[in-house]
């Protein structure tokens, strides 16, 4: 890896983040709706005779700076965000956006990390096996069936899993991140297992939805690799089929998969929003869902900024480690 390569990727990272920040601001404010009015609206549906709603709206618009011209709001937003001050949430006031995200982010990262690693690993193995001549017939029949799940949208898959595993047999919880009644005890093995138990169905829906994508990508790459001369040479040298499969076939076919992994992180993250809503999962996706429904500008901007930052960082890291996997990249 050269310095030029490193600096080029770093510059691209900052351009992406700054562009996304601006887009976040424009899109959040483009959605029709009054976030302060939404709070009052909720109060009135619950029986509140809000005599002073006009006074409350005026007071909170001033508190959140929403009475300022839009360009002033934008400059304040950029300046604050660059200092990682994401502001105060409107719907969760007086909680700060940062605090809400810090509470929710570990849930999402844990879920997405585990589910993505499992989907990527299983999907890649499955795809490689589909292209491998010596794969047992049973695996060849079952693999396409698993791939079918990829065509089902996240949300629908989540509902199916809920019904099949949580509603009728009651094997898994209907939602949430932990068992009901869990008090604020320190982390323990039992608590970790409980969190894993609650994360199983949300994780499974992400795994099933992603499995086909990774399997099909890997099968295509593996078919190409199997036609290469070095595979023929390895066979001629009398290496074991297992070694040829893993060390010669899969290893080389994985390169485009890693590229796809970087590119698909954004899709996976956005898909998890729906999964979290379906499973009532306490992650950042649900936070964004709530914020969007109430036009909570600061929360929308904050969550999107963190998502963009996370995905852009992941892509940057992959960009930087890619030359280690394939030295040709750095040389180019």
């Amino acid at each position, binding site marked *: 890896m050269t310095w030029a390569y490193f600096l080029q990727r770093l510059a691209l990272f900052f351009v992406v983040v700054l562009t996304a920040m601006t887009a976040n601001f424009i899109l959040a404010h483009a959605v029709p709706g009054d976030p302060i009015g939404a709070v009052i609206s909720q109060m009135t549906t619950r029986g509140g005779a809000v005599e002073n709603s006009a006074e409350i709206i005026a007071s909170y618009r001033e508190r959140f700076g929403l009475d300022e011209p839009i360009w002033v709001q934008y400059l304040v937003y950029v300046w604050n965000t660059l200092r990682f001050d994401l502001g105060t949430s409107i719907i969760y006031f007086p909680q700060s956006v940062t605090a809400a995200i810090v509470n929710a982010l570990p849930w999402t990262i844990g879920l997405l990390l585990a589910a993505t690693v499992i989907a990527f690993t299983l999907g890649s193995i499955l795809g490689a096996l589909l292209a491998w001549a010596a794969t047992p017939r049973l695996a060849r029949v079952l693999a396409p069936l698993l791939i079918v799940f990829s065509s089902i949208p996240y949300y629908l898959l989540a509902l199916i899993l809920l019904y099949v595993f949580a509603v009728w047999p009651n094997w898994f919880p209907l939602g949430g991140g932990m068992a009901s009644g*869990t008090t604020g*005890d320190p982390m323990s093995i039992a608590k970790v297992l409980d969190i894993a*138990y609650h994360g199983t169905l949300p994780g499974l829906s992400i795994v099933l939805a992603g499995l086909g994508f990774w399997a099909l990508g890997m099968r295509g790459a593996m078919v190409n690799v199997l036609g290469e001369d070095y595979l023929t040479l390895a066979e001629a040298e009398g290496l074991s089929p297992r070694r040829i499969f893993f060390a010669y076939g899969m290893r080389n076919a994985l390169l485009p998969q890693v590229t796809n992994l970087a590119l698909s992180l954004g899709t996976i993250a956005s898909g998890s929003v729906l999964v979290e809503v379906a499973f009532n999962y306490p992650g950042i996706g649900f936070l964004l869902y709530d914020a969007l429904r109430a036009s909570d500008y600061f929360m929308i901007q904050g969550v999107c900024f963190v998502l963009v930052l996370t995905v852009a960082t992941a892509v940057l890291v992959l960009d930087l480690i890619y030359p280690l996997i394939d030295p040709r990249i750095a040389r180019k």
Partner: protein
Amino acid sequence: MFGSEARSRRNRIAQGLSGAALAAVLGFMPLGAQAQDVPRSETLVLDSTLERIATPENYNPFLPTTTLQGGLHQVAFESLFYLNLETGELQPWQAESYQFNDTFDEVTITLREGVKWSDGVAFTAEDVVFTLNMLKENSASMGNWGGNAKTWVKDVVAVDDRTVRISLNAANPSYVVNTFGARVYWTNQIVPKHIWEGKDPTTFTNYDPAQGWPVSTSPYQLVTANNQETVWDRRDGWWGAETGFAKLPAPKRVIFTSAGNEERRTAMLINNELDTAYAIGKSSFETVHARNPEVVTWFTEMPYAYTDAGPRIIGFNNAVAPFDNPLVRRAASHAVSRDAIVDIAWEGMSRPIQFPVPTLAAMTPFFEGAEDLFAQFPNTEFDSGATEALMTEAGYAKNADGFWADQAGTALVVDLVARQTEADSAKAAPVVAELLRRAGFDAQYRLTDSAGFADQVFQGKANIWLAQINGGVNNPYPTFDMFHSRHAAAIGASATGSYSRYANPEYDAIVEEMGKLATDDPKFKGLVRDALAIWLRDLPVAPTTDAALLASYNNTYWTNWPTSDNPYFQPCFWWASALVSIVAIEPAS
């Protein structure tokens, strides 16, 4: 080619695969790891009505953003009084009694002896004085109670430790019940002066379980809170039990959980994961009851549901054409079949109404003798002939497309707005829009989120919408008052009350007079009739149906739920009055 570096990489991949496999295996093990230290049979699990507890670390009951129904207004605080909708009585709780002066502009409240905060400090009149003054001084940031205090409280003094005297800015015989009665969803809770003094009430979250916050007089203490649920444990030193005012509640732990949606709520009831649930539909309830017969509701047979305090309406923007014309409002009202709304939005569990107050026992007597007015203005009758006649009288004619058009030939565009988060509104909107189209109105409907709805309706951008009227529950004055012209802001400014922007000085004068009288005053009913005559003639909004509240109760772990056979209290555990029922329920075994 395959040296030590390659082997090391293979090992790392294998470790990764093993880790993933282990995670998968652990994930699939239904171990449950219940970190509970109170048995399920001693835990009461209630539905918070929410998808998530939005503000689990905020126990300031006065901020507009605070999540109240996640346990805060049920068990974090008590109320001075609780209004019992079944008996119509204002049940004293932290207070013992109240007494108005003859002109209803001063009230003296006597607090109950022996009431203590959870930290052992006595609950006194100074707490009430502090709370009301704090609300008055910070009215713009303290939700509806800030506005209430600013509007009504002229002066408040502690006569002695147990006596508070509140002078009002104007006569208001309903002040105590409306402010301190946990009338439906809200009550002006009293906060401890010794905790809140010196804090900024506009940002103070009142949350620190480690030091026993929120400090309250309630029999329950917050243990833990997150977006999923709040957990409260019983305080055996509760003043109510110590003074003999009430027995110690049976549940040792109370959990307010976020069931989220009707599907999950239904499944949780079947699986005994909920002891009581927020409103569900008729078919969902019948499914639950078939699978878990221990789950019951208010009535054992149709209509199953309790009557909600917020009847439904079609709202009109009275300040903008065409609905600034009462003839057009009445014509549109005649175009809509209430029976269709009852069948589709409520699955037959509700009933049509003629005035937007709930059909509750305490309300009915105020409208006895007004049958002639309802006959004179049968606004809620589904009658296409009446629509034709009223629209013609208003100067409209149908154009070539069959839609009503003004004299310039411009068709009336009716853009109906409804909240998608309100299940009955979402179901009723297409029905109402279709019926309006059949009657010749070029009607469309739009489902919006809360922010969009607020933007459209509060600011006067929408001309017609579906909503609810949360007015009176034991007398009609609060409902009439929602149509007073002080609520009618200019277009672009935020309206209040019914949001209809109705303005009629003659009506205002009657309502103002009504507000000065006790509801048992002989003149009160006459003023109700006078106001009703104008209201029905002008029809600022079109009443549609009562709202059905099919709240479910599970007898598996707990019994003595409020039902029509045992109607000791209203059955809504997400209301501010829930504590009365929580104290009353009994273990099933």
